[in-house]
C-alpha cells in the first residue's frame, strides 16, 4: 500500500464516517427512509472494503462487517429499527470516530470498538451470542489468498494429475468412493491457467440424486458456472456414475458446490499452483508461451434469457435510489484538471498575443474594444476557476504526518504531541505534492534531532512529551507554514564550528556572523553531507535539500531557534505555480518578469531626489524608503555578473553611482524576501501581465536568479526573475549588506565625529515621541523578533554574534512610553560606545535624515538626553548614548552587555 493510497484511505474514511452519522441521524428522524438506510449500509460496506484493502486493520474490518450485517438485517426486515437498535448503531459510529481518531494518531484503536461490537452483536434476533459466528465468518483475518489455500488443501488429498507429453491425466482422489480419470490436452489446461480458471472434478451417482433432481436445471447451472473439460460415464458395481472434469472462475470448492447444488463430498479440485509449476518445469519442445484459446465469453444474454428472470436478477435491496444526497460536488480526474490547466494557460497566452495584435485595430473596428474586453474577462475567469479546481487543503498532505510522527517517536523512544493548525488552508496541487517531502524531512528532524528523550525533558522542567506544532496560514497572498518544536534548539556556535570544519565558511567570516546567520548555515549544500554533523544538536541533516525543494516551487524558508526552547522553521509558499501575475521590466534591452507576489512596491527616483534617497552603507548602495534602508542591486549588473557594490570609500551619503551615469529617473522595484526588502534597479518598468510559467530548460537550471520562463504576448521568451536567487546570486544578500554596513560604521568611528551637518536616525516607540541618534554614533542596526529576546535576571538579552547583547529599554531610563506590546518586530540600535556593546530597543525607525539643526540643551533637561529640537514639526529628543549607558551603570551596578559566551550566561 503506497503512501497516497493510505492517505486517501484516511481522508475517505472520515468522509464515510461522517456520511454514516448523517445518515443515521436522518434515519432517526424518519425511520422509514429506505434511501438513508441504504446509504448507511453502503458506508459500512465501503469502509469494510477500504480497510481490508489497506490491510492490517482486521479489527476495523470486522467491526464494519458487523455494522453492515446489522444494517442488512434491518434492510431485509429481519430486525426492526427500534430505539435500542438505533442507539446501538449511533454508539457504533461514535466508537468508529473515536477509534479512527486514535488510528490517525498512530495509536491502538481496538479498545474503542470492542465494547460496542458486543452490543451490536447482541442485536441479532436469530442467534444467541455465539450464534453470530455463523454469519460473521472470520472475514477480517481471511488473507486474500484464503480461497486458493483452501483449494490447495483439498487438492492435496485429491492426489492429482500427471503429465503425459502434450496431454495431462487427472485422477479423482484415492479416497473418493468412485474412481476414474480424464485425459485432457495440455493446451486446454494451459488455457484454463491463463484465464485463471480452477479445475474441478465431481461425480454424480444417478441413483443418489434427490427426487426433485432437475436435469435441465443442472445443465443450465453447468453452462453458467463451468466449462466442461471432460466427461466419463461408467458403471461402478452396477451403478451408473457420471464423472465430470470442468473449469470455472469460481475459486472456492464450497462455492462451486453451492453453484452446482452438489453435495460437497462429491466435488474435488486440483492445485492450480502445482499444475502451473508442473507445466512450467516441463515445457513443450516449442516452449512457446501458452497460446490461449481466448475464452469466448459465453453468450450470457442467451443464458440469462433461458433462466427465470428472478434467478437472473437477484432480489436487489439496493434499487436505484433517487439520490437524495443530490451531490453538489463531483470528483474529477486530476489529469483532466491538469490538462484543463494547460489549456487555460495556452488560452491566456493566446489572449495576450491577440490583445497585442489587435491594439491598433481596436479604434478602427467598431465594437472590437468591448469584445476584446469581454474575451479578456472570460479568459481571466476561466483561469481563476481552473486554478481553484486545483486547490486542495493542506490537510491532504498533513494528514499522514500524525501517524508518521508517532511511529518515529515510538522507534526513537520519545513522546510527541503533534498539533496541526490550518489544515484547511488551500494550496495548488503541484505545490502540495512538492511539499510532501520537505515537510516529512522537517518533521523527522524535529522528532529525531529536535526533541529530547522524555527523561532529559523532565530534567529540564519540560513536560515529558515534546510538542511539535505545524501551523499554516495565509499572509500577503502566500501560504505560511511554520513547523516548531519545543526541543533542545540548535546551538549556533556548534553549527559554525561544523561549518568551519567542513570548510563552508572561514573563521574571520564566522566571527562576524549574527545568531540567525549562523543558524542559516545549515541550509548550505554540503553542510549536511559532512559526516560529523549527525551529532549536532538540532537539525542539519538534509536541510539543503529542503531548501532546494522549497525554493524550486518559489518558496522561501527561515529558521529560528533558541537553545533549550526549540526550533521553528518557517516556509513561505506561493499559492500556485501555473499562472502568475508578473510585473514586466526591462534591463539590457531584454524583458524580464518579476512575480507580483515578490513585488512590495515600485519606486521612481528622480534625479533631484537621488542624492537624498540613495546612500551607501558600508560599500553597499542603499535606498532610503520610509522607515527602512533598502539594499539595492542593479538587474543589469546581476545579469552581467558584476558585483553591484563599488569599491569606493566615499564619505556618506553618496549617490549609488556617479551622477553622470545616472539616468533621469531610476526605477526601483522593491522586492520582498520574507521579512526583508531590497530594491532592484531596472531600466524600465513595463506592464503587469498574467504569465504562464514554463520550467527552466535543463541547460540553465543552474542560474539561480531565474525561476522559470514564459512566452510573451509577442511570442518572445522572457525569463522570470527569482527574488531569492537574485539576492543570493548578485553577491549582495542581506548578510553581506549588514557586514558592509558594519565595516563602514567602524571606519566612520575612526573619522571625525563632529560634522557640520549630521546624519540622524530618527526612531520612536510611541507615535508621539521621537528620538534621534547621530548616524555616526550608531554602529549597527538590527531587526529582531520580540520572541528572540531572553530575559535573564530582569534584564533583556539578545543572542548575538555568538554571545549575548544586553538590550536597553529607553522607558527604563527616561520618562518615555514603552513600545507597543504587540510589536511584531523590534529594532535594536547598537551605539558606538567605548565599553561593551549594548542595544537600544525601538519599535520603529522613522527616518534617516540629514540636518544641521541646532539642538537646544535647555528644552529637555534629563540625564541621557542632549537636548531637543523640532524637526518637520516633530519634537525630537537627541539621545546621548554614552550618558544613557552611564545611567545604567548607576542603576544596576554596571552594565554587562559584553560579548560573553552563551554557555556562561546565567540560567533562566
Amino acid at each position, binding site marked *: 500500500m503506497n503512501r497516497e*493510497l493510505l492517505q*486517501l484511505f484516511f481522508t475517505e474514511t472520515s468522509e464515510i464516517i461522517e456520511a454514516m452519522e448523517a445518515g443515521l441521524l436522518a434515519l432517526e428522524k424518519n425511520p422509514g427512509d429506505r434511501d438513508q438506510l441504504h446509504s448507511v449500509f453502503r458506508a459500512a460496506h465501503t469502509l469494510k472494503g477500504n480497510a481490508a484493502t489497506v490491510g492490517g486493520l482486521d479489527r476495523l474490518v470486522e467491526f464494519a462487517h458487523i455494522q453492515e450485517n446489522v444494517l442488512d438485517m434491518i434492510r431485509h426486515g429481519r430486525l426492526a429499527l427500534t430505539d435500542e437498535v438505533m442507539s446501538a448503531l449511533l454508539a457504533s459510529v461514535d466508537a468508529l470516530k473515536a477509534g479512527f481518531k486514535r488510528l490517525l494518531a498512530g495509536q491502538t484503536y481496538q479498545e474503542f470498538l470492542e465494547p460496542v461490537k458486543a452490543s451490536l452483536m447482541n442485536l441479532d434476533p436469530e442467534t444467541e451470542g455465539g450464534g453470530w459466528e455463523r454469519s460473521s465468518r472470520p472475514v477480517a483475518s481471511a488473507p*486474500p489468498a484464503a480461497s486458493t489455500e483452501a483449494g490447495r488443501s483439498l487438492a492435496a488429498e485429491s492426489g492429482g494429475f500427471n503429465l503425459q507429453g502434450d496431454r495431462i491425466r487427472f485422477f479423482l482422489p484415492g479416497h473418493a468412493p468412485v474412481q476414474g480419470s480424464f485425459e485432457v490436452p495440455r493446451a486446454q489446461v494451459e488455457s484454463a491457467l491463463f484465464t485463471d480458471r480452477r479445475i474441478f472434478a465431481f461425480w454424480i451417482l444417478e441413483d443418489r440424486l434427490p427426487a426433485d433432481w432437475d436435469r435441465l436445471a443442472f445443465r443450465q447451472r453447468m453452462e453458467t458456472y463451468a466449462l466442461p473439460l471432460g466427461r466419463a460415464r461408467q458403471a461402478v458395481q452396477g451403478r451408473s456414475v457420471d464423472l465430470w472434469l470442468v473449469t470455472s472462475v469460481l475459486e472456492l470448492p464450497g462455492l462451486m458446490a453451492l453453484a452446482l447444488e452438489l453435495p460437497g463430498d462429491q466435488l474435488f479440485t486440483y492445485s492450480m499452483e502445482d499444475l502451473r509449476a508442473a507445466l512450467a518445469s516441463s515445457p513443450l519442445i516449442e516452449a512457446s508461451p501458452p497460446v490461449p484459446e481466448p*475464452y469466448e465469453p459465453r453468450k450470457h444474454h442467451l443464458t440469462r434469457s433461458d433462466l427465470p428472470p428472478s*434467478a437472473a436478477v437477484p432480489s436487489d435491496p439496493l434499487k*436505484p435510489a433517487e439520490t437524495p444526497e443530490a451531490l453538489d460536488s463531483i470528483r474529477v480526474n486530476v489529469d483532466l484538471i491538469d490538462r484543463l490547466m494547460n489549456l487555460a494557460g495556452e488560452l491566456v497566452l493566446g489572449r495576450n498575443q491577440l490583445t497585442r495584435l489587435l491594439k491598433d485595430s481596436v479604434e478602427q473596428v467598431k465594437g472590437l474594444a468591448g469584445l476584446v474586453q469581454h474575451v479578456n474577462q472570460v479568459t481571466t475567469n476561466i483561469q481563476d476557476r481552473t486554478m481553484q479546481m486545483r486547490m486542495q487543503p493542506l490537510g491532504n498532505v498533513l494528514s499522514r504526518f500524525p501517524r508518521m510522527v508517532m511511529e518515529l517517536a515510538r522507534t526513537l523512544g520519545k513522546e510527541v504531541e503533534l498539533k496541526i493548525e490550518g489544515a484547511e488552508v488551500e494550496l495548488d496541487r503541484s505545490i502540495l505534492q512538492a511539499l510532501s517531502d520537505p515537510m516529512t524531512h522537517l518533521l523527522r528532524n524535529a522528532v529525531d534531532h529536535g526533541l529530547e528523550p522524555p527523561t532529559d525533558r523532565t530534567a529540564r522542567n519540560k513536560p515529558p512529551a515534546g510538542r511539535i506544532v505545524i501551523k499554516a496560514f495565509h499572509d500577503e497572498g502566500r501560504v505560511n507554514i511554520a513547523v516548531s518544536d519545543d526541543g533542545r534548539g540548535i546551538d549556533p556556535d556548534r553549527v559554525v564550528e561544523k561549518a568551519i570544519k567542513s570548510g563552508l565558511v572561514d573563521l574571520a567570516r564566522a566571527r562576524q556572523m549574527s545568531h540567525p546567520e549562523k543558524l542559516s548555515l545549515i541550509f548550505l549544500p554540503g553542510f549536511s553531507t559532512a559526516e560529523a554533523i549527525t551529532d549536532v544538536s538540532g537539525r542539519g541533516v538534509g536541510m539543503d535539500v529542503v531548501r532546494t525543494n522549497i525554493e524550486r516551487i518559489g518558496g522561501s524558508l527561515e529558521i529560528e531557534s533558541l537553545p533549550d526552547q526549540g526550533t521553528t522553521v518557517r516556509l513561505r509558499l506561493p499559492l500556485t505555480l501555473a499562472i502568475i501575475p508578473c510585473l514586466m521590466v526591462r534591463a539590457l534591452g531584454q524583458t524580464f518578469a518579476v512575480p507580483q507576489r515578490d513585488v512590495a512596491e515600485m519606486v521612481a527616483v528622480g534625479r533631484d531626489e537621488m542624492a537624498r534617497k540613495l546612500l551607501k552603507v558600508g560599500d553597499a548602495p542603499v535606498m532610503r524608503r520610509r522607515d527602512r534602508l533598502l539594499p539595492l542591486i542593479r538587474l543589469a549588473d546581476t545579469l552581467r555578473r558584476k558585483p553591484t557594490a563599488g569599491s569606493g570609500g566615499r564619505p556618506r551619503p553618496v549617490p549609488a553611482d556617479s551622477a553622470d551615469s545616472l539616468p533621469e529617473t531610476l526605477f526601483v522595484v522593491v522586492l520582498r524576501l520574507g521579512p526583508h526588502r531590497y530594491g532592484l534597479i531596472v531600466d524600465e518598468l513595463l506592464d503587469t501581465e498574467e504569465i504562464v510559467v514554463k520550467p527552466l530548460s535543463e541547460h540553465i537550471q543552474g542560474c539561480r536568479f531565474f525561476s522559470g520562463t514564459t512566452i510573451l504576448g509577442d511570442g518572445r521568451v522572457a525569463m522570470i526573475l527569482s527574488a531569492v536567487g537574485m539576492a543570493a546570486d548578485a553577491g549582495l544578500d542581506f548578510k553581506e549588506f549588514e557586514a558592509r554596513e558594519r565595516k563602514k560604521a567602524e571606519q566612520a568611528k575612526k573619522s571625525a565625529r563632529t560634522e557640520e551637518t549630521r546624519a540622524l536616525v530618527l526612531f520612536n516607540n510611541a507615535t508621539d515621541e521621537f528620538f534621534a541618534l547621530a548616524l555616526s554614533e550608531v554602529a549597527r542596526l538590527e531587526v529582531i523578533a520580540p520572541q528572540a529576546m531572553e530575559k535573564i535576571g530582569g534584564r533583556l538579552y539578545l543572542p548575538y554574534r555568538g554571545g549575548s547583547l544586553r538590550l536597553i529599554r529607553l522607558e527604563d531610563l527616561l520618562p518615555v512610553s514603552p513600545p507597543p506590546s504587540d510589536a511584531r518586530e523590534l529594532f535594536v540600535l547598537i551605539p558606538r560606545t567605548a565599553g561593551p556593546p549594548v542595544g537600544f530597543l525601538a519599535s520603529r525607525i522613522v527616518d534617516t535624515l540629514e540636518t544641521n539643526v541646532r539642538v537646544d540643551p535647555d528644552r529637555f533637561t534629563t540625564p541621557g538626553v542632549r537636548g531637543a529640537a523640532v524637526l518637520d514639526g516633530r519634537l525630537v529628543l537627541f539621545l546621548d548614548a554614552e550618558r544613557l549607558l552611564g545611567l545604567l551603570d548607576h542603576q544596576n551596578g554596571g552594565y554587562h552587555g559584553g560579548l560573553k559566551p552563551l554557555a556562561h550566561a546565567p540560567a533562566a
Partner: protein
Amino acid sequence: MSSRDFTVLTVDDSKLIRQNVRKILLDIHIPDILEAEDGQEATEIISRRRVDLIISDWTMPRMNGQELLEWVRSNPGTLTTPFIMLTAEGDQQRVLAALKGGVNNYIVKPFKPDILYRKIRQFLPPENQHQITALGY
C-alpha cells in the same frame, strides 16, 4: 489493439479502490483508465466511449454492479466486453448472481495486484501481458 488505446473502466464508489486499481494498471502500462463512482455514471461513460474492460464493484449507490452488468450485457455494443466484478468476502450469492449475469470473472476484495493481473491478463493486449510477466507475476 495496442495498450495505447486499450481502455479500462473502473466503477467503484470508493476512490481508494479506484486508485488502487489505477495504480495496479499503471504498473503494467495501461494509461487509459476511466473511472465512475456508480453504475449510472458508468453507463453514461460506456454510451459515449469504447471501453475494453470493465472492473466494477457490486455495492454502489444509484445503480449497483449487478444492474450495471445487466445493462452492459443487454447493450449490443458491450455484449462481450469483459466484465470483472469486485465483491466483498462472503458474498457467495452475489458471486453466483454475477456469474449468472455474465461476468467474466470476479475478484474478492481486498485483493493484491497479482490477483487482478491473473484475472484480467487474458483480456489485455499482448504488450500489457508481457508487462505482467516482466513484473514477475
